[in-house]
């Protein structure tokens, strides 16, 4: 899928191109670097979209988040010193963009009906592994559990990295990850493991 930047306002002609695929960038000095960066963003876009989708739980919002994140990344591409770290860097931008959007619009507010469904008890997965049920169960996890889980499993972040990103203690991250998996464990038909977190606070 192409990245299509929003059209800017007149008077921006000499400003930095906003689109990662802006073809004019290929005619500017350093065009090869920019082209490589564009290519890098494009190649990681599906990962970013999937990640954003799991955070926002809405495809259109995820698209917006990724689009905005790519524009931010494009503007601050000089701060990426190691292209090997691009994926983690971009995932972090996406996460922060989601957090910004969440703060602005309170997108994570869910209806009481959804909350009731979340706590309605185990929904046993079919034999042969019902990923559909599991996907919905993950989707229904509260954000404080879903976010570290997605960061860990999809993003490949370590506990320490998640702790830094979420401004939590490593112990709090372990607690959230344990509880997230424990909830999913129940939904998948297994007995809940005793909460060994010692009633750790989530922060």
């Amino acid at each position, binding site marked *: 899928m192409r990245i299509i930047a929003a059209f800017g306002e007149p008077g921006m002609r000499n400003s930095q191109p906003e689109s990662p*695929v802006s073809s004019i960038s290929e005619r500017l000095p350093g065009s090869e670097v920019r082209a490589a960066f564009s290519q890098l963003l494009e190649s990681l876009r599906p990962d970013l979209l999937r990640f954003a989708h799991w955070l926002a739980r809405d495809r259109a919002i995820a698209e917006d988040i990724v689009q905005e994140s790519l524009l931010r990344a494009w503007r601050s591409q000089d701060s990426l010193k190691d292209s090997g770290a691009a994926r983690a860097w971009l995932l972090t931008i996406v996460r922060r963009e989601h957090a910004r959007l969440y703060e602005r619009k309170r997108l994570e507010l869910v209806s009481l009906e*959804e909350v009731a469904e979340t706590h309605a008890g185990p929904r046993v997965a079919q034999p042969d592994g019902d990923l559909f049920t599991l996907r919905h169960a993950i989707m229904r996890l509260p954000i404080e559990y879903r976010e570290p889980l997605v960061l860990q499993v999809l993003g490949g972040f370590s506990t320490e990295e998640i702790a830094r990103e979420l401004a939590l203690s490593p112990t709090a991250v372990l607690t959230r990850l344990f509880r997230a998996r424990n909830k999913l464990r129940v939904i998948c038909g297994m007995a809940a493991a005793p909460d*060994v977190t010692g009633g750790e606070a989530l922060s």
Partner: protein
Amino acid sequence: MTCDDARLSIGAEPGSTGPALEEHLLACPACRQFREEMRALDGNIRRALEHAPEPLTAQRRTAPAVWRQWALAASVALAMFAALAVWVLRPSDTLARDVVAHVQAEPESWLATQHVDAQAIEAALRGAGVELNITSNRISYAQSCWFRGHYVPHLVVNTTQGPATVIILKHEQVSARHTFHEAGMSGVIVPAGAGSIAVLTRGGGNVDQIAGQMEQDVRWLPKTS
């Protein structure tokens, strides 16, 4: 390491390992079993996450409220209307789509406010086999762009109806005039000379009128051998 420590570690990071944990697992079949279960679960979690989630509403089991039914009906109607609109307003062929995609990929072309000098216009037209009877102060963007295997002039011309993108497609023959509306742009591709001319505007402007004017302003040069 206690069982609680081991289970916290396994539950949080099923793939984790370490001397203390392994030592505990050797002596504790229950925790070993717990790790096997959590690793199996984690494999499923990974597979689940690698697919995009479906909308939350897909698995609702409770009866929807009345307003939800109305909202659903409205959504369906809106979706049908949108589908109809997309079908009616779709680019008439792949050439139109390619033109739209090309213009979208060069958003800076719309932002230019100063006129392009004659040299830049000449560079844009070079090799395209056309001349323009337009004064350079009406052209705010001129590039020779790679499009469908050829370099084509991509211009933004300031008309009395606002800026219009003009792409001269010497190598693209169309049998008839095609209009299209896509991505906030209105456009037309008209047969002209040896090929065709695409004209696109944003937010207004009579593309047919502009295309008609361009047909007069573009002079197709004979092929040189």
